[in-house]
């Protein structure tokens, strides 16, 4: 028989979350990506994180642009809203969606091409506006859909499948986010779900723009010797700087810890993060030093992963603009659009 879709089998061993849903209820359509694509693991991690958090699927809007990564929202949360935008323009669409309905949780999935090449400007502005969303970059260093050319995140000296070297320096979204005032900056690896799932949960619980850059090997065009984004390379050079435990609001913190080692961070929804240093020379909570650390380790060929910076004190887009608590799409029309008289009165004030 030919290829089949993943059957929805609700077996007795399947756990249920606070909403009474199983992990199957957070899945989506059958992936059409190459077998073994890192993106599918990220999809599975999103499914797992949303299931564990008990996210109501109908309260989520999946936002994406163009590319292999941007196809993935079709493969998770099939009961959620979604928008597949023009190439690189997802941050604008997301901003509009958030402006219209601030109760909607935005889950953006983009790639290194979509965010760091054609959509770089859009990405930077969404980030500095601190739009309340989780923004995942599925970063594989190549343009997979167009047969494996180097992307803007390819490392200097990395080799493509034909053995040619990349001679342009990479754009690192993590360093950029730190420089632009990002309030949640993290990196992970698609092959490390133990790290990735808590980071996705933390990113969803963070109020503001949560950037999660995930090294996600392209199994077809960038998983060879000489690649710096292959499974083997990512495993060998992964430097886990920070370990993140995610503790949901209702749960007590069970593990005992010394205050010097662990930094507890309380998020707006009452959940807590326990950040534990794995690399001794890394200073959590210092933007400048974080950038310096990333540069140094990158020069040494290492990929620094973990929740590298978090700041819960900054207002998000709605906070900064003092918008009303009610989502605009629920505000009665007369109030939202009070008519030409009101417009005239407003304009009069500026004359």
């Amino acid at each position: 028989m030919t290829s089949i879709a993943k059957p929805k089998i609700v077996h007795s061993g399947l756990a249920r979350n606070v909403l009474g849903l199983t992990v199957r209820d957070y899945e989506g359509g059958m992936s059409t990506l190459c077998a073994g694509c890192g993106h599918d693991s990220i999809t599975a991690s999103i499914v797992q994180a949303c299931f564990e958090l008990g996210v109501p699927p109908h309260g989520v809007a999946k936002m994406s642009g163009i590319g292999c990564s941007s196809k993935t929202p079709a493969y998770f949360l099939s009961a959620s809203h979604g928008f597949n935008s023009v190439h690189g323009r997802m941050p604008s669409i997301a901003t509009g969606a958030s402006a219209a309905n601030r109760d909607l949780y935005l889950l953006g999935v983009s790639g290194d091409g979509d965010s760091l090449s054609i959509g770089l400007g859009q990405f930077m502005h969404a980030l500095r506006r601190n739009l309340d969303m989780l923004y995942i970059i599925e970063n594989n260093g190549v343009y997979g859909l167009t047969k494996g050319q180097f992307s803007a995140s390819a490392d200097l000296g990395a080799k493509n499948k034909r053995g040619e070297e990349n001679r342009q320096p990479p754009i690192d979204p993590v360093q950029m986010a730190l420089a632009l005032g990002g309030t949640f900056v993290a990196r992970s690896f698609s092959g490390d779900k133990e790290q990735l799932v808590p980071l996705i949960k933390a990113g969803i619980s963070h109020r503001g723009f949560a950037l999660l850059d995930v090294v996600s090997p392209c199994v077809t065009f960038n998983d060879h010797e000489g690649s710096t984004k292959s499974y083997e390379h990512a495993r060998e050079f992964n430097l886990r700087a920070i370990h993140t435990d995610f503790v949901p609001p209702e749960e007590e913190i069970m593990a005992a810890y010394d205050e010097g080692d662990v930094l507890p961070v309380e998020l707006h929804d009452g959940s807590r993060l326990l950040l534990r240093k794995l690399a001794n020379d890394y200073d959590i909570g210092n933007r400048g030093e974080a950038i310096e650390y990333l540069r140094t380790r990158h020069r040494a060929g290492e990929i620094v992963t973990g929740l590298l910076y978090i700041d819960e004190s900054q207002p998000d887009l709605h906070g900064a603009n003092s918008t009303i608590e009610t989502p605009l799409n629920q505000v009665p029309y007369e109030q939202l659009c009070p008519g030409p008289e009101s417009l005239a009165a407003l304009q009069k004030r500026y004359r």
Partner: protein
Amino acid sequence: MEPTDTAGTEYFHRVVDCQWACPANTDVPQYIRLIAQGRFADAYLLNRESNVFPGILGRVCDRPCEPACRRGRVEAEPVAICRLKRVAADNRGDIEDRLPRAPEVRNGKRVALVGAGCASLTVANDLAPLGYECVVFEALDRPGGLMRTNIPAFRLPTSVLDDEIGYITRLGVDVRYSSPVQSLKALLDDGFDAVFVGSGAPKGKDLRLPGRDASDRIHIGIDWLGSIAFGHTKSVGARVLIIGVGNTAMDCCRSSLRLGAKDVKVIARKPRRFFKASEWELEDAEEERVEIVVNYSPKAFVMENGKLVGMQFEELEYEFQGDDIVGQKVLRDVFLPCDDVVLAIGQENAFPWIERDLGIGFDRHEVPVIDTVTFQSTRPGVFFGGDAAFGPKNIIWAVKHGHEAAISIHKHCQGMATTERLPRGVNLTTAKMGIHEWSYSNGYEPAERRIMPHVELTKRFKKLNIEVELGFSVEQIATEVERCLNCDIQTAFTPKLCIECDACIDICPVDCLTIAPNGDATEIDERLKTPRQNPTQPLYVSEPLPQTGRVMLKDENICVHCGLCAERCPTGAWDMQKSTVKIPYAAEESRAGEAQWQNSRKAG
């Protein structure tokens, strides 16, 4: 944990739960696949290889395969394996020319078979094609043993019996009817090279209570069923009590209804979960409005004016500790009126015709001592099988005994050691046909088990031999075959190819795969993605994986064999492979013996 050895026979054989549970190791997934392809004759012949009587067993098998079926662990009901076997039998057409034939020249060895039941017939089926002269001695005037006498025709039509027994008797088997064996000594003196005793367990247990001998309306279940089958008993009173609640009791109560009874009660000493009858036989009886009375212990048969008028019972109350009964007390005495009583409280084998000085050992329960592998008694050359060997079991067990005894008889007659037997084997071939192409139907059919249609209640009691089950419709067959999970298409893993991309873990619809650091059994259990629910099912542990040294773990319990792990694997580390379990029969032993002889000739 140590890496699992999948190279041996056992691991992959155990994964095929139905075939592993079947005493005769019927290749269930393959015959269901053949039915799905409309190849009914092929499905029938595949069945016949292992279980000899597919048409009979497709109606009355005790189906140990179904409780074992993986489908029953994934959802509520197993695949209707047994009734699909009937589908193959009902639609097989003429297969006579595809059956083995006896050679024109015999091999000069004579084998006596006592009783023409399923065990003896299986022995004849295996040995006659090898040139053995098989002589069957049968006490009755028709073959079939308990299949004919104890299973009512409304469950098993006589035409089905005649067809399948005919396939064997037409192999040139000499069946001597109305010839009960009176003396084993005489038989042995007749110069047979081997004797097989397949005389069943023909003695129904009696219930010695006051009034037992005062009426002729108290019947022993299996004898009574036999007398119905042969047309000697044609009627029964309006009110019938059946004592006992095994499968024979179910046949007795349902037969009563067809002989004219209006009020039939089955009396059980214990609560329902202690019943010996199979759940489906209970359901069929209850559908016919038979009342099952629990916690009644028989006390006496009550007579009035020399006529049976009813039975006296004690109503019991049990004290439980968990599932076990730890005490009982009598609540009250109860009288139930009736016209007939049928005792269906068990049966046993009996060998009054075996002299005790022939070197055949009997234990203190007067049961012969039989080797559980060779089925040979303590006297070389005398073999037992079926109910005669280890007491009452089911047809499918007797068939298994028959196959094994046939191997032993062949070895014995050829002067070889009966204990040296060919091993089982498992063949594996990939099911991959191309990208996204598999040689089996891997789609998951979510439909529930199809319900067997029955003849209407108003019609089925008109005659004794109206078969109640109508068989599946074409639509039902098409759905039911797809419910099979193809457990014989194995997930075969090659650790050195794995790049740990997690594709298989993410796609598995039942979360049975995990990649985790190795550890001891408890640690491994904790690391599994889904906790183990059924530790009796195999757990696969791979060799260390190349990139991280972690191991691939697979809990076989509810793997649905959809092949998605292999489909999504970028390196071909997972593959779906069709396994075929090779079970040697007497024919294989004979071929192996010949090959050995040829080889030694070449070497010489």
